[in-house]
């Protein structure tokens, strides 16, 4: 069989969504960010809402998310993405507005903006990538760093007594009236990827129905920051992160 006989539409099993740009991803090989980007863009493509979608990029590893997502984007100051999204959504209630944030951005410096956007029930979607570390600045301790976990600012491991324990902001905001859908997902294996994509679709569908805020936490790895191989980081994540940050709807 010749190659040209194989390359046919009916044989196509996978393609990259055109909503991802041709720019090379700036993420470390093995990192979950690229997968989460792709899933969101696939859903935006499948829902046919590219012309009505505005993304908010944070400060952190995904500060350049707008280089990779072929949609209109606004880059927010550190932690302020939910406020930026609020400003857009309030004036453009028919548009789809999402933020894409890391744990330092959402759960430390942006705690107030996160909680109040959730409490007001802003009709936006928050995509929250939790890898338990500040990746971009070189692996410092994050609000979600596990007890005993080493980072560049907790080199002997996180000491809950002096540094405070990690906290589950996703469970916290789930208590708020304005929050409609909260779920925790992962993207390290094909099964979780399929589930995560369904969750993204559900969250964006809920925006169309004006149901209030939805938040999806993706527990992810940071193989560079954790100083592990990609494979080892995924195993470590399953064994250590998942028990503290359990998967599923909250």
């Amino acid at each position: 069989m010749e190659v040209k006989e194989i390359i046919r539409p009916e044989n196509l099993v996978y393609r990259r969504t055109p909503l991802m740009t041709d720019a090379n991803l700036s993420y470390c090989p093995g990192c979950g960010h690229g997968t989460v980007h792709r899933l969101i863009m696939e859903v935006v493509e499948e829902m046919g809402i590219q012309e009505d979608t505005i993304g908010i990029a944070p400060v952190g590893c995904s500060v350049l998310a707008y280089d990779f997502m072929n949609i209109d984007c606004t880059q927010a100051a550190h932690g302020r993405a939910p406020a930026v999204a609020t400003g857009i959504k309030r004036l453009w209630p028919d548009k789809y507005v999402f933020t894409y944030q890391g744990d330092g951005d959402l759960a430390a410096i942006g705690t107030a903006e996160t909680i109040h956007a959730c409490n007001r029930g802003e009709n936006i979607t928050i995509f929250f990538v939790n890898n338990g570390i500040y990746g971009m600045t070189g692996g410092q301790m994050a609000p979600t760093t596990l007890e005993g976990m080493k980072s560049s600012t907790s080199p002997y491991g996180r000491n809950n007594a002096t540094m405070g324990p990690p906290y589950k902001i996703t469970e916290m905001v789930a208590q708020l009236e304005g929050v409609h859908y909260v779920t925790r997902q992962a993207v390290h294996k094909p099964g979780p990827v399929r589930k995560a994509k369904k969750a993204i679709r559900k969250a964006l569908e809920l925006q169309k129905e004006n149901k209030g805020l939805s938040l999806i936490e993706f527990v992810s790895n940071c193989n560079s920051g954790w100083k592990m191989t990609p494979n080892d980081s995924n195993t470590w994540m399953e064994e250590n992160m998942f028990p503290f940050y359990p998967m599923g709807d909250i």
Partner: protein
Amino acid sequence: MKELALMKGNEAIAEAAIRAGVDGYFGYPITPQSEVMEYLMLQKPEERTGMVVLQAESEVASINMLYGAAGTGKKVMTSSSSPGISLMQEGISYIAGAELPCLIVNVVRGGPGLGTIQPSQADYFQSTKGGGHGDYRLIVLAPASVQEMADFVDLGFELAFKYRNPALILTDGLIGQMMEKVELSPQKERVTEFDQSWVTTGKTKDRERNIITSLNLDPDLQYEHNLKLQAKYKSMEQDVMFEKTECDDADFLLVAYGSSARICQKVVEMARSRGKKVGLLRPQTLFPFPSVELARMARKVKGMMAVELSAGQMVEDVKLAVNGRIPVSHYGMVGGKIHSPDDVLNELEKKYIGGY
């Protein structure tokens, strides 16, 4: 027929905002400017024009709501007072860096820190020299009456959109709280067409995606961006505004803006009644600053005195404009106290008129 009203300065800003066709206001309460949001909420602008008014959880949040909304091309504004404006500085720097039009109102109170709720002009440096990080400038308007509080809302948006730059109304608790007669402008329609070359309203098929950001990791690009910004700030000089009182034959010139200018108008009257030739130059724009006119006046008068409710901030710009040609001094009150016309006149006589 003229539509006249008796209003507080803060209320005039709010009413003018509705009439200017503003799309959104995001704010947080702080004395002495809370009347702006209170008036807006009372007026139900969502029914009058469809304007959105939202009370944010902090000034940090409100300025970032403004940033997001301004990036979609809508007419949006916030207001606050000194400590709240300090909290906004990060966001203002981002808005300036991303070149977004919007309007910010600072009803200044005395500082530093929590300071006092009494009027002050001690935020001049913060307003005209940057305030946040990086080389950026705001368009700064300085109203001296309730009428100008109303008029400068429209003017602020006009200039903000002309230059795609944040505009700031720099006023104080005195102008914000006092009541005066004001002639209101007719209601403007809210804008429904947006410049698709830069707004983030969703990427349509006929254009590339738009990105609102102040980030350029490549120093060559950030360098070019900064040069472009500086050229823009330079070009704003064409929109400088000032008002001159009794300047044609003046020997001495007072330079004052906002509430201090109101006091100095009286000083000019009092000095003239005593046969002293004193004039007043009142900058209505503090950035761009009327440097060219002050340099011109420096060839005509014997001395200038900058009168401000601060320890001496605008006086530095007056000195730069005059460039040593004639003596320039400062007189001012600090900490929320206000000088009387007598105080100013005594100082003027002591410094210049008596001594010359």
